């Protein structure tokens, strides 16, 4: 298996796990589902990035970071050709404002320790603080809204499916 294929397969597995954990009747599980949706988005983007890197289309592959919004913006700004059926043009169309906004949101929810003197920001894994410094757990029922869940679910589902198709096509184009 190639590295891009391994990324994509793992991203697909993350998505399946997220869907199982994503329990509409129990808001306390939303943080767990978001964690898996974020992993799914990160890995599927890294799969396509590493494939394009191996093909020489881009000059750098994925890095160790979990935040991928910048790479998504790069994939969405590929120089286009007049032929809208071209693969790279299809990739541009995938990264709509709606999708990029959700990737930005998922990036912002990756857990990170706060800077010295700063407040711990909302994330899907670690305790965090509100504006007045009170602590909350990501599994509190009111931390993530149903609307956020719906948009994140749509974003992850779209990306894992469409990026999987794009990787299939890239494998044919650049075996």
């Amino acid at each position: 298996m190639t590295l891009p294929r391994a990324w994509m397969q793992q991203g697909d597995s993350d998505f399946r796990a997220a869907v199982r954990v994503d329990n509409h009747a129990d808001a306390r599980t939303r943080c767990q589902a978001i964690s898996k949706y974020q992993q799914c988005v990160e890995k599927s983007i890294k799969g396509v990035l590493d494939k394009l890197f191996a093909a020489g289309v881009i000059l750098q592959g994925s890095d160790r970071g979990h935040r991928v919004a910048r790479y998504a913006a790069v994939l969405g700004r590929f120089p286009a050709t007049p032929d809208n059926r071209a693969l790279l043009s299809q990739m541009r169309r995938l990264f709509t404002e709606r999708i990029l906004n959700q990737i930005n949101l998922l990036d912002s929810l990756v857990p990170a320790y706060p800077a010295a003197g700063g407040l711990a920001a909302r994330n899907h894994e670690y305790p965090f603080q509100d504006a007045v410094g009170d602590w909350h757990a990501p599994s509190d029922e009111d931390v993530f809204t149903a609307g956020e869940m719906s948009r994140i679910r749509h974003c992850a589902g779209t990306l894992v499916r469409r990026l999987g198709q794009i990787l299939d096509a890239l494998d044919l184009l650049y075996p």
Partner: protein
Amino acid sequence: MAVATATYPAFEGQVRELVDQHRKLKNGHLHLAVYFAPPRRHKRDIFVLEVIDGFGGDVVDPEDKLFEFGYGSTPGFPVPAGTSLRMILSNPKEFHHAVDRDWKAVKELRTACGAGQATVIFADASGKRLWTLIR
């Protein structure tokens, strides 16, 4: 030793087409686009700075680096062997921060500008204000 031939400003037409495409994108309003040739970088490469609303979630890079990404030759932007398109992308908040703290990429941009090796391809009102910070 072979000396690389500088490509600036030979790709201005292609860069204009690319920037024009990016202006039409609905995902991130473009404020400023500059085609430039930083003196200490690969002279065959094509450097384009774009400042875009919301890029990277409007986050300021914690490592004090503007995000740079290289493309090889693509059907939409063909380049000869040994040449690559290098996009430097930022958002207005980060760009202001980078100028205030004189990040490396800002120094390169200033040097290129001072040497007459930078062309503003597009700037809206906000982009023009950003560019005056460099000049």
